[in-house]
């Protein structure tokens, strides 16, 4: 899942076509859920025929997540999935990612702003030029409790 800035949102393409592109990016993908099922999962049901530039920032992020999920790959890399989105969308995306983890998919998420979401992950690596902490959320909190400049409000 790329950063939002990497996408040309004005390109003439609908939500449905955009999600289908995920299959192009992984030729070995297994037959899995349909575009409609995935859009329902990410809270975008009924928006299949909308153009990308008619969507809000949060909806665009959901489309990118659906495009990543349609690949049905074992490991998903998510680059800054929470950038420029509202708290309800953030909570929804986190919920979907949690469900994927529960069915056995590995998710690697990079973010500079963890906020309260830190506890949603099984393992956390904190990198500030070099590896600062590595472990469960609780272990990471203990390791870098006094490093507010790195972790923001997650340890508050």
């Amino acid at each position, binding site marked *: 899942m790329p950063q939002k800035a990497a996408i040309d949102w004005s*390109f003439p393409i*609908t939500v449905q076509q955009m999600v289908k592109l995920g299959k192009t990016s992984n030729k070995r993908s297994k037959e899995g859920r349909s575009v409609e099922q995935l859009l329902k999962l990410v809270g975008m049901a009924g928006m299949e025929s909308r153009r990308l530039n008619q969507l809000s920032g949060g909806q665009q992020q959901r489309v990118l997540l659906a495009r990543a999920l349609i690949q049905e790959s074992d490991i998903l890399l998510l680059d800054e999935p929470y950038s420029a989105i509202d708290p309800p969308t953030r909570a929804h995306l986190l919920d979907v990612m949690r469900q994927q983890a529960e069915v056995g998919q590995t998710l690697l998420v990079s973010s500079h702003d963890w906020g309260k979401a830190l506890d949603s992950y099984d393992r956390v690596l904190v990198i500030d030029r070099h590896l600062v902490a590595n472990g469960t959320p609780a272990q990471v909190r203990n390791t870098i409790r006094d490093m507010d400049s790195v972790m923001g409000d997650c340890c508050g």
Partner: protein
Amino acid sequence: MALMVGSICPAAGSLLITQRRILLANLMAHSVLPGLVVAIALEVDPSIGGLISGLIGALVAERLNQRFRGREEGSMNTVLAGFTALGVLMVPLLKARIDLESILFGDILTAGGIDLVRTGLAALALVMLFTTRYQDLVFIGVDPEGALAARRPVSQIRFTAIVITALVVISAITAVGIVLVIGLLCAPVLVHVERSTSLRNLILKSCGTGLLLCGGGMMLAVLLDLPPGPLIGVLCMVLLFLRRP
């Protein structure tokens, strides 16, 4: 001939505008001039000289873009002007017997069978690109980094698109000339790009508009006894004002 040019230019333009490479296309349109002059002076097919020269122009621009990163528009426009100037200079230098005005602004009345074949070949190349690489063209347009990461043949497709653009430009010379072809590449696409729901949809709508523009422009030119190339160029601009916001 005008109708064929009216459909292939917007088809190529749809690709170039959605991939944000229209400036490169304009540069190539001007870069074909030195090659055309050399080919005519050497009495070989001008389209071969134009194609080679157009590709050299694109390669020079890509090279300079790396040197002037972040200021690409400036370097590309300088190359565009440089190649046009080089072409103009070559006419007296090679003592070529060329009607420069008809190359720059078109003269459809001089179009012959070879021009029709050339345009047909450009149309065939475009159709083949769209039918065999459609999904990749969409992927590269909407998410170029993603297409690279997915190991799509981005460089090859972009190079093929550049070659086909050069072919389309050369085909359009007799109808609208190398200066005005950019209007046909852009205007029919711009009026539809915001309301099209797919690249295919955009190509079809743009081709239809391009056909009307060229057909209408030709008829108007005959009625008013004006040169068709410049008239079509003006109609392209008027079209943008007619589009409802």
